[in-house]
């Protein structure tokens, strides 16, 4: 009843089922493939349609269920054993420039219960490798381990890796100096460095950017969304920042020194001021780190979990002691955690301690940071205005940074052309349309970059038939990635078989990608080999395996 226009083959199957003979081999149930709506994620939606079409050719009955992100995430994260296959993505964040977060969190068996390993992948050999790379400080050594992890994943295919997308952004070159735009490796031109260095050509000194997501909160203790983090990155300083080259560089930290495997001493800048005029002290830094792990900021807590203590030495030295050696500590903790003013947050946190709510629920009227931009005002669902902090050690060239909330791509492009925005920072549409529009317009420059992030289809490794690596490999091989690159991403992506982006040249394992072969025939022979056969037009389990999850 629900599917209106079933393909002819499915109705044939339906008729066959009505006849109801018993089979030696159980047919595989209808597989539900989750996707986000076309309006929100056209490329993903299209890829899912293509994948479903290819899988159906193998004799699998596939139904595509479309739901908005919030519903999809709850369906996948919350009921971990209830879904089959889902389209998924990892976005490129600066701190993901270190491969640890992805190769460890996504696939280590310890995170399967409630962490990022939502697919339930469990391989002791893999676990050992990623544990080891964590504590290996020597880069060459670590590089080997990271590549080994990639090879294991390629063999097991816990996910069907699709592509590393190329993100396209654009700006108005009549307004901004082209060479003042910073292209951050694996991130693109939409990055904090750009907002600092962007130099105006004319009297228009406001950077006007767009987002299709609503701003949920401006809160240094709450990871509330990608868009929101643009703002917190500008409002709040961190000890380090991931530089345009993808490597961490000192920011609020003047210098640093590893005293041993587990101890790092950071000297902070002495000239920093909070936006309310009070100086930034080592005390504030200590407070910031303690707050993060203190229980009131659950989403930031994992980023500080390797810290065992924070001590102040003298006026401006902060010493972090770690529980274990950590290769990625600077990137994932020191370049991640926001510095917040103790005088503002101490009373707030004291108050919150007595309540059910935690710091994530607290929205300051006027957020106070020490960052290169100051908070100006926030018009609900319309715009957020930040103004340049001229006293900052890295003061921006622009006067204001204005984020406009524009729900659809069509309007965003229209606004870029009409000058209502001058820097396109969120474009979910077809990049080719953007490039064509830029060409027609003449004033618009489009820059696209391969992302650290990636798109993939996650198999639920807990559920049959996806618990069988052979089956997963076959399904993954069924779809030629060139099809996905061309047909879904319009060429604005690179085919992938590794979770480590080619943008991270040092860590990326080229061989894994080059050796991957795909095509319907390959998939069919893989299934044959593993004992899967077609029973009356529909794919069935190998003998002895029963379908226990049929509807």
């Amino acid at each position: 009843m629900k599917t209106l226009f079933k393909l002819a083959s499915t109705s044939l199957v339906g008729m066959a089922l009505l006849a109801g003979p018993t089979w030696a081999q159980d047919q595989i149930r209808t597989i539900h493939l989750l996707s986000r709506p076309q309006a929100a994620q056209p490329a993903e939606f299209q890829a899912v349609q293509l994948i479903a079409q290819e899988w159906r050719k193998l004799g699998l009955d596939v139904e595509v269920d479309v739901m908005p992100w919030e519903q999809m995430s709850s369906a996948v994260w919350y009921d971990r054993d209830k879904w089959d296959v889902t389209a998924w993505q990892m976005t490129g964040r600066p701190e993901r420039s270190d491969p640890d977060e992805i190769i460890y969190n996504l696939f280590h068996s310890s995170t399967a219960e409630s962490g990022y390993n939502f697919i339930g992948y469990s391989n002791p050999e893999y676990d050992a490798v990623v544990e080891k790379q964590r504590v290996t400080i020597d880069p060459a050594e670590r590089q080997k381990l990271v590549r080994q992890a990639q090879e294991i994943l390629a063999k097991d295919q816990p996910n069907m890796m699709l592509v590393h997308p190329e993100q396209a952004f654009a700006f108005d070159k009549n307004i901004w100096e082209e060479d003042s735009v910073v292209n951050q490796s694996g991130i693109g031109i939409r990055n904090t460095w750009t907002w600092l260095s962007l130099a105006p050509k004319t009297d228009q000194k406001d950077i006007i950017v767009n987002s299709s997501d609503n701003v949920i909160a401006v809160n240094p203790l709450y990871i509330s969304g990608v868009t929101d983090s643009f703002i917190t990155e500008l409002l709040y300083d961190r000890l380090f920042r991931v530089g345009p080259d993808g490597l961490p560089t000192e920011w609020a930290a003047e210098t640093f020194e590893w005293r041993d495997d587990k101890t790092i001493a950071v000297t902070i800048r002495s000239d920093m001021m909070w936006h309310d005029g009070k100086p930034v002290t080592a005390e504030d830094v200590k407070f910031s780190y303690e707050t993060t792990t203190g229980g009131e900021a659950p989403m930031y807590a994992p980023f500080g979990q390797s810290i065992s203590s924070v001590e102040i030495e003298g006026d401006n030295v902060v010493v972090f002691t770690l529980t274990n050696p950590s290769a990625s500590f600077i990137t994932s903790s020191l370049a991640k955690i926001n510095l917040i003013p103790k005088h503002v947050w101490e009373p707030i946190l004291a108050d919150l301690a007595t309540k059910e709510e935690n710091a994530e629920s607290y929205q300051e009227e006027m957020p106070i940071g020490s960052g290169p931009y100051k908070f100006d005002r926030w018009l609900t669902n319309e715009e957020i205005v930040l103004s340049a902090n001229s006293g900052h050690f890295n003061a921006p060239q622009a006067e204001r940074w204005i984020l406009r909330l524009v729900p659809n791509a069509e309007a965003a492009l229209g606004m870029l052309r009409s000058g209502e925005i001058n820097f396109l920072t969120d474009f979910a549409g077809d990049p080719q349309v953007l490039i064509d529009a830029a060409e027609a317009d003449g004033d618009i420059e489009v820059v696209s970059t391969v992302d650290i992030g990636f798109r993939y289809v996650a198999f639920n490794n807990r559920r049959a038939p996806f618990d069988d690596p052979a089956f997963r490999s076959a399904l993954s091989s069924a779809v030629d990635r060139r099809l996905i690159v061309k047909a879904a991403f319009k060429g604005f992506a690179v085919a992938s078989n590794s979770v480590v982006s080619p943008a991270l040249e040092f860590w990326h394992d080229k061989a894994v990608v080059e050796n991957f072969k795909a095509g319907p025939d390959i998939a069919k022979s893989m299934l044959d080999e593993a004992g899967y056969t077609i029973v009356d037009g529909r794919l069935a389990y190998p003998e002895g395996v029963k379908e226990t999850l049929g509807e």
Partner: protein
Amino acid sequence: MSTLKPVLSRTFQLILVLWAVVTILFLMFRLMPGNPLAAYIDPTFTLEQQEALIRQFGLDESLLRQYFTYLGNLLQGELGYSFRYRTPVAERIWLLLPNTLILTFSSLIVAYIFGILAGAWLAWRRASRAEAFALPIVLATRAMPEFWLGMVLLAIFSFSLGIFPAGGTRSAGTEYESLWSLYTSADFLSHLALPMLTLAIYSQGLPLLLMRSNMLDVMKEDFVTMAKVKGLSPYTIVIKHGARNALLPVMTSFAISVGYQLQGNVVVESVFSWPGLGRELVSAVSASDYPLAQGAFLMIAVVVILMNLIADLLYTFLDPRISHA
């Protein structure tokens, strides 16, 4: 005394309806399948953290208890906390309501002025070629998906011709002292133009057709014939008797249209990036932000119910047959 009576009894009815709608809303959102907070519980949360969040939103209480808390809060004008924004729902809604109302009313006023004039004109020109041409067009405007019309207008007047901006209520970063100074600024009006026009084009059909058919009916009334027999001027007959009588139900329909329009806004606000209640409802629903969706829904429902009441009362007051009973 006689005017107080309908007001009282209608208000009493309004309260009943409001209560029923509030209750339906409560049940609708609470009885939805799945954990309402699912989307907001991060997988890395410990069990205690999850429970704390559930307690924070009062979802651990019994349904009946939640219901009474909800009613009690409503009476104090509180709509709970948004799951997504973690801030009070009422605060957000009050911020967005004026934008929705100004869009709704400005478009309806334009639609009604045009609709009434055009409707009267078409009634005057009944059975003419103008009518044969105009009526199907008018009917077609009511058959258009509003978002489609909005998109087409956007494509023409904004993307192609660049006459009007593509969205929002004002240019980036502009500041106004008050809502009033915003709403009267040229910047705001140019932003208002397209969404307002979209809604107005869609809405003008109702007053137009209503005015036209009422005019035609009224012109058949005995008192119009008598006005002719009295030798009164055509102006007096058509305007003072025809239009005046025909206007009555049209005015009443205005209030009802406000309610309808508010619902149509849901789509048009999304097209024009208009920061209003409708767009908020849509985004809250897609984000499974139940308290916010509930609050936005309730606010729209309140306006709809209020407008139904006003329509009733308008009818009562504008028609001397009822007001002077």
